[in-house]
């Protein structure tokens, strides 16, 4: 018994000391040995037999980039852009280090096993069993780790868009469609919902500013059309940055609410609202009727251009600015309270008419912001069409004329037609706008699944072609 205890203590001691040395060595080894296909990497990733060679190499590239970004940060590189890149890489890096740790432990245990078996000692049978148990335990940790790493290959937010999704403000256009007064009433309700959820920061924390850029109402209190500006005042999403990362190894999949919560916290106003773009259909019995009516409201969400960049985005010579023009000499000759402004962007034909404010200056400023957001959005869509065949309508926020959601009052159910999620309690979801935060996470997941499928295709192709390193 005395012997066994000593051996156990010895075992634990070896386990503590060895891995640190091995971890740095293995990283070094992996950098030097990339040239041949037959190379055996010492970073332990090859233990993950569930992942293809191409996937493992992709992971290696991510880890290398992580270490490089870390070095650049320490050398004084730009913390904003590097920090954001770091956020997309730290999870994978932490997993890699865990894998390397396990690999080092296994290696030293296997050595110990060899030694002990070779010694031929009678007493060593217990120790051999213990070592074998430990090795099995370590082996078992690899499976869930492997799964997590596979998931981590594809970041939750598309890296091409992450800047916009986390920090851009939003311009939201709402327009009542078919259904007359009913549609206008529903438009007013949707608008109130968006305002409410925006003011509570989109579930992320700090409240966002809501500014009504324009709003034309009906006599019954409905809204024919309106434009809102939602701004985080530079705050962006609640938490997005380089933080220390805790690697959990248990096999419990992360709770859906926690995943959703983490996602929502990262999103800025544009990222939060972007999937509201499209046609919202409502089915209910109008106040003054007893027949079920279907009406529609069209929503468009655009990234807002920061005020300081509006004049760069829209050079004056591309604009036609029309104001209420008095006949005669103008200026002091005439006293007018007509302050309406129409701004037309000549190259694209995009136009905004603003008469909300009593000051012409303010109307002009609001109209500029609207035009800037719409022109930017149009240009982005054109660029995207040229760039790729979008896999699904989810890439880039979707087509405004696509029917995205149905609010069925008699059945008390809201259904999103894209992610196929339904919730009960239309009124309560609608009145505080919480439906936005409910449907956004599954939609982001769908978009992520698209990217995952695309990556898997790519890795399959590269595997078939014998390429060992895929592009990131």
């Amino acid at each position, binding site marked *: 018994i005395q012997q066994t205890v000593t051996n156990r203590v010895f075992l634990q001691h070896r386990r503590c000391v060895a891995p640190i040395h091995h971890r740095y060595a293995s990283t070094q080894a992996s950098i030097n040995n990339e040239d041949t296909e037959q190379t055996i990497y010492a970073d332990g990733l090859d233990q993950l037999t569930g992942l293809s060679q191409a996937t493992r190499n992709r992971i290696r590239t991510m880890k290398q980039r992580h270490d490089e970004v870390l070095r650049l940060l320490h050398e004084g590189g730009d913390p904003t852009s590097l920090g954001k890149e770091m956020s997309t890489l730290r999870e994978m890096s932490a997993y890699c280090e865990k894998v390397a740790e396990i690999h080092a432990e296994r290696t030293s245990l296997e050595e110990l096993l060899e030694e002990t078996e070779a010694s031929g000692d009678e007493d060593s049978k217990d120790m051999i069993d213990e070592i074998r148990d430990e090795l099995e335990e370590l082996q078992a940790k690899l499976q869930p780790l492997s799964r997590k790493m596979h998931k981590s290959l594809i970041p939750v937010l598309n890296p091409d868009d992450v800047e916009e999704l986390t920090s851009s403000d939003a311009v939201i256009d709402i327009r009542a469609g078919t259904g007359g007064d009913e549609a206008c009433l529903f438009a007013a309700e949707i608008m109130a919902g968006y305002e409410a959820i925006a003011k509570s920061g989109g579930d992320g924390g700090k409240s966002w500013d809501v500014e009504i850029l324009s709003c034309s109402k009906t006599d019954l209190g409905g809204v024919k059309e309106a434009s809102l500006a939602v701004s985080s005042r530079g705050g962006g999403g609640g938490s997005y940055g380089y933080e220390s990362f805790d690697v959990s190894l248990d096999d419990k999949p992360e709770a859906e609410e926690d995943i959703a919560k983490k996602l929502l916290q990262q999103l800025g106003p544009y990222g939060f609202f972007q999937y509201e773009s499209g046609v919202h259909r409502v089915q209910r019995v109008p106040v003054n009727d007893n027949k079920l009516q279907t009406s529609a409201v069209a929503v468009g969400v655009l990234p807002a251009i920061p005020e300081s960049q509006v004049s760069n985005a829209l050079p004056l010579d591309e604009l036609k*600015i029309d*104001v209420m*023009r*008095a006949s*005669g*000499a*103008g*200026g*002091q*000759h*005439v*006293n*007018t*309270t007509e*302050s309406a402004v129409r701004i037309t962007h000549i190259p694209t034909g995009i136009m905004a008419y603003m008469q909300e*404010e*009593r*000051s*012409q*200056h*303010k109307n002009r400023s609001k109209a500029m912001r609207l035009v800037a957001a719409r022109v930017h959005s149009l240009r982005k869509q054109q660029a995207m069409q040229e760039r790729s065949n979008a896999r699904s309508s989810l890439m880039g926020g979707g087509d405004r004329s696509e029917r995205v959601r149905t609010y069925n009052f008699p059945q008390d159910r809201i259904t999103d037609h894209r992610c196929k999620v339904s919730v009960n309690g239309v009124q309560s979801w609608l009145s505080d706008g919480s439906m936005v935060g409910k449907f956004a996470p599954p939609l982001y997941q769908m978009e992520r699944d698209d990217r995952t499928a695309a990556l898997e295709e790519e890795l399959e192709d590269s595997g078939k072609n014998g390429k060992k390193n895929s592009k990131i």
Partner: protein
Amino acid sequence: QMSEEQCNTFQSLLDRRIDLEPLQYIMGQWDFHDLVGLKIKEPMLCPRPETEELVEFVLEEVSELIRNRGSTNERIRILDVGCGTGAIGLAIANRYCDEVQVVALDVLPEAVELSNNNAKTFLANHVGKKEGLEVNTIYEAILCSADDFTNTQECNTYKMDFDIVVSNPPYIPSKDMVTLSEDVSRYESDKALCGGDDGLDIIRHIVRRLPEWTSGNCWMEVDDSHPSFIADWLSPGSQESARLGVKCISTYKDFCGRDRFVKLRVL
């Protein structure tokens, strides 16, 4: 449903409007630039939208001055000649309350009072937050004409050395006064509108005094007949320009496409 008292009030307001009284006077206030609810009283001139553009020119220059001067506690000094409701100077002070000091002139005591009143309204919040800061550190209107705003041997009261001079002086030529619509001619002050025969009387006073006030730029809103004339009169290198010590740098159109603004500089 309105009460009888409300109906009567509403009716009397309507009557005033039917009588062509300007809406701003009836309401007692209107918005100008970023100032919401600027108090406006007869007979001071109701601010026009063109004047908002004048403010924007000055704001751009103030912003540039701030950018180029480095760190300092000294305020950028602005002179608003013919302040009326205080609109121009206050729009500037409102945007740059930590960086500017506005002195505003008018010949009507009611205008001086109204301007200082408006200043209290718009600047009180900001002043309250800082120890030892008074409204008149940022904005002060005084009763004085352009011509009288000068220091002599006997009377050396005024601190000059302004960085920017801005004005929307009375500029309507006398002959045009009869063409004005009734809501202007019957209610707004002649003194705020008429600039003499060619409309340039006050402008000439300003130009004469300009080198005493500043070594920088002067922005003015003028009659659409004036910019080309002034560009010629004060053309750089011309005799008049040399004599007066002022040159015209450029002219600008307003959003209606009319010649409206001039930028002058002291030589």
